[in-house]
């Protein structure tokens, strides 16, 4: 086993690499070495057998190819030694694979007791992160990252501008952790299944409604990495991105945390409401331009008449402050006619609700 371990470590390009390799993304967490080591062990065993089997197929094809009607050179149909060999060797190899995977997995499933806990809550189709020290609630900002991505692609943003915009967004969004610190993530879902996945860290956990999932990691390299949803969750599944920021040290992380969840309260209420609309994920379902998304548009919504169903009974109301607040606090109570009724409970403060209401008002009657 020892010999094999050292052999594996020679075959894998781990020691020198921080960027992505041909097969695997950047190895930047404490689990990357284990997972990648296991990956390359299985990989080389597989390559060996694939080459062996392919070589035999090709050699036999060339050597024993014969015109129709020619007799086979042998009709031998068994060899007990061979059968034992090709049963025994796979048994041993697959037990080794199981064993490595088991060892690695137990470490991944056991967070150390001193780990800092951050809650990641998944809703259609945005992330929200809650930090323990000050209860700051920070959005995943999927829409912003997707806009930046599209801007880069259609050339309206240069890579530098994109990076700059990303940094501005990340001042108040994203999953932030200090480097070389054990972090435990509690994963929750408010509506359907999602999965919390950071490819560069090799960690993944399903977010299941009604369950509290957990995973942990220690980021080993400061930088910005992708966080994606890996479990199919409908229309916005492929846009449910966010970023992980690994801070260089604890101080930098704490400095960020102190300002992350705050608002610039000198701004007019309607502008603050627009920030809430983006930050809290309203943007994924409510448009501002009259376009139909999963929920009704906010353009001209205030003061208009809204048909709804409540407990399967149809009704109608004027959209006013009370109706907006009720719809935020109890989203499944009155469901606007013609919409599927998929709104999660987004916990807003009283101030945030006030700002959002002012924002909707400002969008005209």
């Amino acid at each position: 086993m020892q010999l094999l371990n050292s052999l594996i470590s020679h075959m894998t390009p781990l020691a020198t690499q921080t960027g992505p390799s041909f097969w695997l993304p950047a190895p930047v967490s404490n689990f990357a070495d284990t997972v990648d080591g296991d990956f390359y062990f299985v990989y080389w065993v597989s390559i060996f057998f694939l080459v062996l089997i392919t070589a035999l197929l090709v050699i036999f094809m060339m050597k024993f190819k014969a015109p129709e009607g020619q007799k086979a050179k042998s009709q031998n149909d068994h060899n007990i030694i061979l059968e034992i060999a090709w049963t025994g060797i796979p048994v041993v190899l697959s037990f080794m694979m199981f064993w490595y995977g088991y060892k690695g997995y137990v470490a991944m499933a056991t967070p150390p007791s001193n780990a800092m806990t951050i809650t990641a809550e998944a809703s259609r189709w945005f992330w929200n992160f809650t930090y323990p020290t000050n209860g700051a609630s920070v959005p995943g900002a999927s829409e912003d990252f997707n806009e930046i991505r599209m801007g880069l692609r259609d050339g309206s943003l240069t890579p530098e501008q994109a990076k700059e915009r990303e940094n501005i967004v990340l001042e108040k969004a994203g999953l932030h952790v200090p480097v070389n610190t054990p972090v435990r993530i509690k994963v929750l879902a408010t509506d359907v299944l999602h999965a919390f996945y950071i490819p560069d860290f090799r960690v993944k956990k399903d977010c299941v409604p009604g369950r509290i999932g957990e995973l942990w990691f220690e980021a080993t390299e400061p930088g910005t990495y992708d966080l994606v949803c890996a479990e199919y969750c409908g229309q916005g599944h492929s846009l449910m991105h966010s970023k992980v920021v690994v801070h260089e040290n604890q101080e930098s992380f704490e400095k960020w945390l102190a300002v992350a969840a705050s608002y610039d309260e000198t701004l007019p209420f309607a502008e603050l409401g627009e920030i809430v609309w983006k930050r809290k994920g309203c943007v994924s379902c409510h448009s501002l331009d009259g376009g139909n998304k999963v929920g009704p548009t906010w353009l001209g919504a205030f003061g208009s008449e809204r048909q709804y169903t409540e407990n399967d009974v149809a009704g109608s109301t004027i959209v006013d402050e009370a109706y907006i607040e009720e719809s935020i606090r109890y989203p499944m109570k009155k469901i606007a006619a013609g919409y599927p009724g998929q709104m999660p409970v987004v916990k807003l403060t009283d101030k945030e609700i006030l700002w959002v209401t002012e924002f909707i008002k400002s969008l005209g009657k």
Partner: protein
Amino acid sequence: MNPNEPNAAGSEAANAEAVTSAPVAVESGPSYLTVTKTISSWAFTLDHKRIGLMYLVGVLGMFLLGGVFALLVRTELFSPIPLITPLFAADPGAQADLYNQWFTTHGAIMVFLVIIPGVPAALGNFVLPLLLGAKDVAFPRLNLGSFYLWICGAAFFVYVLFNGGVDTGWTFYTPYSTDTSTAVIPAVVGVFILGFSSIFTGLNFIVTIHKMRPKGMTWFNMPLFLWGAYSTAVIQVLATPVLGITLLLLILERTLGIGIFDASSGGDPVLYQHFFWFYSHPAVYIMIIPAMGVISEIISVHSHKRIFGYRYIAYSSVAIAIFSFIVWGHHMFTSGQSTTMNIIFSGITFSVGIPSAIKVFNWIATMYKGSLTLNTTMLYGLSFIFLFTIGGLTGLFLGVLSIDTHLHDTYFVVAHFHYVMMGSGLIAFIGGLHHWWPKMTGKMFSEFWGRIACTLVFIGFNLTFIPQFVMGSLGMPRRYYTYQDKFEIYHQLSTIGAYVMALGFFMTAFYLLQSLASGKKAPTNPWGGNSLEWHTPSPPPLENFHGVPSATDPYELDHFDYDPVTGNYSSRTSTGTA
């Protein structure tokens, strides 16, 4: 030497006798195709061959439909920018919804309507009684009933296509499936009905194999296809009812809100996954075990050599069938299932790999010192071995707990199961179709176009799915309508591969149809096989055999003389069949 092992030396005496009593193929009288000609003689037929042929037409039609959706998905993914969905929907949200319906439809059709019934119901129905020297299956009426249930299930799918589609993915995971406004219930009812079609076929095959083997055919000189069909039938009968119950619960959850899968009512969405995979993991083996049976026939017959390690192949089919029931939890390694459960399921999962490896090595050993005819059928057989090897080996990555944490729900998984389900299951189905085509239709297809098409399918398949392994392990999640630019090159290669493969399949459809119109007449035994179907005319008469056949040694393949004029392999006069 194991005295029970069928081998050249030990069973020679028995063979001589068996071959002597093998039926004589008399090329006269109408075949099952021409004996009656009315539409009702097909619609109400109890003949397993006609039912098999009708299944075949249905399955191939659904394969075309599922394939069209695959091409739509792959075309859309050629670019991360919406490419063809805007042709069908103006709103960006509706475009994403449409894509989600496409991949769901592709998956559901291919799994439930093509691969599961492909080898067992379409090829199996035609071949199984012939291999047994029987006139029909044990319950011909039930067999016709299975077929109409299949039609009924397929009709529900077609209804869904025109009534809002379904966007849950083929797995119907809760709570999404209880929440989406698409046509989940008709789709689930369709799958429920197809389940019964599958159960009845399985039941029929179990009874047929138990009760209708000819004189002299023991379990251990059955053709290996029958071992595959038998193992599959057992899984169909035992596992499919669980799917049926699960789907009923899903319907009740959607209509009455019983709450069994709903966390807010005290239920658990993961429970659905347990129920679903308790069927659907064995279902993977419903797709692959009969395919392995086909390959055992193809490799042996076209190598003109006894199958190597008969008993090991037979037992490994049974072993896979048994293990398949206790590995379902490996689909839920990241679901929050307990660590202990994950470790147990991971351990058991590796046990499935062993019998698969045994089969591959035995097929290769069969080729050693054989006389390999590299015709279209054999090329499909060889493709299968290569593709199945990749499918099996990449399964190892997913069984290793630490690696699966990274690879779960990425394109690596997508590529892996396509290698197993399509590269293995479907390629074996197409290979088997070529193997038995002359027997079914009485016509030979064009070997020239056949080999070209097979090569295109092989190259296209690998080009489609190898890039998916790479992007998957780099972190590309599955079921994504749009993706990060860094994955674009892999998606583009994959899409090109899909088109190459489609070209191969269209070519196949073309030359097979052409063979019906103007193909050379097929001889009784075009490949030199010795199982019973090669001892009756191509196509067989309605009652399958003239006279009552008794068992042959299916892998006694060296006593034939090839006639280059007729293309027929006939038993040597010395064996006394003249």
